[in-house]
């Protein structure tokens, strides 16, 4: 018996582990939620503190170096980023208009959508250490509000979901693991499918019929159908499409570099509600343009220009009574350079180009339309300098405005009554608006009567 002692022990050790393995597999199938094995908790508790220390030391050193010593090129980068911010602010105005319209339609349809209510930032501190198990460990756990099956994203797109949560650590299954599955939709064709990981760590769209229209470069977004990821988050782009006998082989390149994760966001709270329409009037590109232009000192309330400007504002084709130009942060710090063209493009659908004079006919027409708005603008506190007047000069052309007024109320006064000289800045802005604006008159009518 002593001769076979070692082999017997080997057989016993293997047998025990196989029994344990079979028990876990059966239990895992029966109860998908599973439970945390003590050995897992012990191992994670033993390994992750060390990982946290190393990661934090490394991050701290890198931060000190980059934030206090290695600042080469930061000024240039800052200038570029400032320019980008300005461009994006103007772009945001246009998109906000579209979003508002979409929300109105969604509300009409009783559509409910999911919002990310509360994201928690976390740092990736480790991996599983196995090529067959694609998961990462985060430095936040249940004590930070993280729970099982919470979505994990980064600024570029989705990363994975939390599958095991410990007190100060959590385990995140990456989307390229073969046991992972994400409900997705193709942005161009709105075709839905399930994104899965392959054993080699690639991403494929599963069960797409061969007759479907899928092209390389198509963007893949989350569909929200998996109840884990909110709808519309970027997943990746289609890298290649191979036709099979029944299904397409659609390979997707993830938008997130899953091999180089450092910081992620865990969506700890999602809310499902009907989209709310913003109660305040949207900021228009023309308003931003008006804010950008230099202003002159306030006019006395008795001056004709004050009610004129306010009235003009109230008669803007957006149909929203806006006695003053809103002091939105969007419009702050915007220089008077290149974005003018964009601003006027955005404004083109609502404003018409003007000549070199302020049109008084629209003033009276609008006054009749919205007396309260006109009254509000009489208050000096509501009249920020000459900005509404500048807006007037940008948008208050004779003929188009008469058309606009005629939609709502009767315009009685001729277009060029009480002509006023404009400042050079106004003239240049006007010129820019004239050069770039190409909106048809019908736009004014439709925009002037919102649903």
């Amino acid at each position, binding site marked *: 018996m002593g001769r076979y002692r*070692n082999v017997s022990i080997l057989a016993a050790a293997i047998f025990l582990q196989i029994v344990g393995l079979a028990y*876990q597999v059966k239990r895992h199938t029966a109860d998908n939620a599973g439970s945390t094995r003590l050995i897992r908790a012990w191992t994670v508790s033993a390994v992750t503190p060390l*990982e946290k220390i190393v990661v934090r030391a490394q991050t701290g050193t890198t931060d000190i170096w980059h934030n206090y010593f290695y600042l080469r090129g930061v000024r240039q980068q800052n200038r570029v980023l400032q320019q980008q911010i300005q461009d994006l602010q103007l772009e945001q105005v246009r998109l906000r208009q579209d979003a508002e319209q979409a929300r109105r339609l969604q509300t009409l349809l009783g559509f409910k959508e999911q919002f990310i209510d509360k994201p928690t930032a976390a740092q990736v*501190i*480790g991996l599983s250490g*196995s*090529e*067959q198990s694609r998961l990462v460990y985060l430095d936040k756990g249940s004590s930070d509000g993280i729970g099982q099956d919470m979505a994990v994203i980064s600024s570029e797109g989705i990363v994975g979901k939390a599958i095991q949560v410990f007190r100060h650590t959590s385990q995140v299954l990456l989307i390229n693991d073969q*046991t992972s599955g994400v409900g997705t939709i193709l942005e161009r064709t709105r075709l839905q499918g399930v994104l899965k990981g392959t054993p080699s760590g690639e991403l494929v769209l599963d069960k797409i019929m061969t007759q479907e229209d899928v092209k390389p470069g198509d963007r893949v977004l989350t569909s929200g159908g998996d109840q884990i990821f909110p709808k519309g988050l970027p997943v990746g782009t289609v890298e290649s499409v191979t036709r099979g006998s029944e299904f397409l082989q659609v390979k997707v390149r993830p938008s997130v570099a899953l091999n180089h994760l450092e910081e992620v966001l865990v969506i700890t709270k999602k809310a499902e509600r009907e989209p709310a329409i913003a109660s305040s009037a949207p900021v228009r590109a023309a308003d931003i343009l008006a804010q950008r232009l230099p202003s002159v000192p306030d006019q006395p309330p008795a001056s004709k220009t004050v009610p004129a400007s306010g009235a003009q504002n109230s008669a803007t084709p957006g149909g929203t009574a806006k006695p003053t130009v809103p002091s939105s942060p969007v419009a702050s710090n915007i220089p008077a350079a290149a974005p003018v063209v964009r601003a006027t493009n955005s404004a083109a659908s609502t404003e018409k180009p003007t000549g070199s004079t302020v049109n008084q006919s629209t003033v009276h027409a609008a006054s009749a339309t919205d007396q309260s708005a006109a009254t509000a603008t009489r208050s000096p506190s509501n009249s920020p300098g000459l900005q509404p007047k500048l807006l007037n000069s940008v948008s208050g052309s004779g003929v188009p405005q008469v058309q606009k007024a005629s939609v709502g109320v009767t315009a009685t006064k001729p277009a060029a009554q009480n002509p006023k000289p404009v400042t050079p800045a106004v003239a240049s802005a006007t010129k820019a608006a004239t050069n770039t604006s190409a909106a048809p008159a019908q736009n004014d009518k439709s925009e002037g009567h919102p649903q």
Partner: protein
Amino acid sequence: MALTYTSREQIEVYRFSVPVAIIVPLLAIFFQAFVPLRLPFFSVFDLPLLVVIFFAMARRSPVAGLLTGACIGLLQDSLTHHPLGLYGIAKTVVGYGASSMGVKLDVESVGTRLLVTTGFYVVHQVIYFTIARALVGLDLQWSWPHELISAVANAFLGILLFWGMDRLKQRA
């Protein structure tokens, strides 16, 4: 590069202090989980396997070898999301085999270590894939080129690692 048959009289059995026996496997698991985060190519290495092979060959006791393999394997399993036992069984077999081999071969030479490590890496992967497919139902893809390259890479790393760990051995 020659495999030298060693007589029983020539065999030296080593032991390790308790701190080394605990800390080295834990460090191996830590590095395995942490380094690929910064250096993704590092995931081809299997540091816990190299530690199992080293301990098993140095101790030259099959029971100690298989128990070391089982413990380190189960710890490695617990960092994955797969059932516990996949690495456990594979490393148990490797621990047993390496210690049995250590009794018969001169495992101090570089050539022997290179071949033994390459061979045990392949054995480990074959067992792991077999169990994962047959018992757990995982759809893993076997790639001979990948496994062979990984085996050779692990063998070269093993030579360096074993050279460093030789300093931790104590003659029994």
